[in-house]
């Protein structure tokens, strides 16, 4: 049930999807892989929107060079664990939601356990090898996956529904070795906010999702285009389910 405080707090968005929609957000459990640039904007906006349970995982500690884009953190957080600061920041933003934050490295052994029981998975990672683990886990557990990635002014977003859409491996069969890529905070925010908007739309069953569509965002030339993508019958990752 929404409280009087909830009704006041979410008044502007209740105009869009009503009390029923807000209840759906409150009941939802979202797993966010990564509390860096993408994870910052995704988690802050999902917490603000009233997602009832947010689980966020990142093994890192906060460095000065994170602060140009990782808006979950501030100068007095330097040297602290991202998971601790993310939990505190999200709870400070919205004390009525549950936040669990784990300082872990996502790997083959823990991935299924970490995402278990979540309704949605957000890929806010900074490397493809770990993204592939989330992609597999999403298909094993039949949980939708919201992918975002970027480099410089080029970003991409897609929404993956197991069994129905192209998976990450259908679109990107192999990926380069992870490296520190150039990132501008405002632009990683754009990509994260598109992911968060997809999550809110999915939970409410409204609008058109980026299913079988890879959204290509060019921040430098201010253009957004869709590429139609298809599930591959040959794909090892989503064929097994």
């Amino acid at each position, binding site marked *: 049930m929404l409280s009087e405080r909830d009704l006041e707090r979410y008044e502007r968005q209740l105009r869009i999807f009503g009390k029923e929609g807000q209840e759906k957000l409150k009941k939802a459990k979202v797993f966010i892989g990564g509390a860096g640039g993408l994870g910052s904007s995704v988690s802050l906006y999902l917490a603000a929107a009233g997602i009832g349970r947010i689980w966020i995982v990142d093994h890192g500690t906060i460095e000065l060079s994170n602060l140009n884009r990782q808006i979950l953190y501030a100068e007095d957080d330097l040297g602290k664990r991202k998971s601790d600061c993310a939990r505190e920041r999200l709870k400070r933003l919205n004390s009525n939601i549950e936040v669990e934050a784990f300082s872990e490295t996502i790997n083959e052994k823990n991935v299924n356990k970490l995402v278990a029981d979540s309704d949605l998975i957000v890929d806010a990672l900074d490397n493809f090898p770990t993204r592939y683990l989330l992609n597999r886990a999403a298909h094993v557990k039949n949980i939708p996956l919201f992918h*975002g990635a970027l480099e410089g002014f080029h970003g991409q977003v897609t929404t993956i529904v197991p069994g129905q859409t192209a998976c990450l491996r*259908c*679109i990107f069969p192999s990926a380069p070795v992870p490296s*520190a890529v150039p990132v501008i905070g405002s632009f990683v925010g754009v990509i994260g906010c598109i992911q968060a908007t997809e999550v809110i739309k999915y939970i409410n069953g409204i609008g058109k999702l980026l299913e*079988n569509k890879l959204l290509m965002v060019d921040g430098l030339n201010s253009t957004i285009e869709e590429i139609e*993508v298809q599930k591959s019958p040959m794909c090892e990752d989503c064929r097994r389910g």
Partner: protein
Amino acid sequence: MKIKVKFFASFRELFQEGEVELPNGRTMRDLLNFLCDSSKRREGIFDGAELKPYLSILKNGQHIFHLNGLETKLDDGDTVAIFPPVGGG
């Protein structure tokens, strides 16, 4: 046959997108060879005779890795999307 070619990310600046006219029965390798008409463009796509690893090359939304690689046959009206990987977050 006419093939619609679209480039994204940094390939936008390197290539010019549009429709390419090729004789019938040609493959993705033929299309890419046609598109790589300068050494700079060639370096963007190829590593010797083979594709640079990790490039996304989609024929009508399917990655050619899941089709027949460079030998994937093209048909009139196909759309090909080509872009380098972005992996940060």
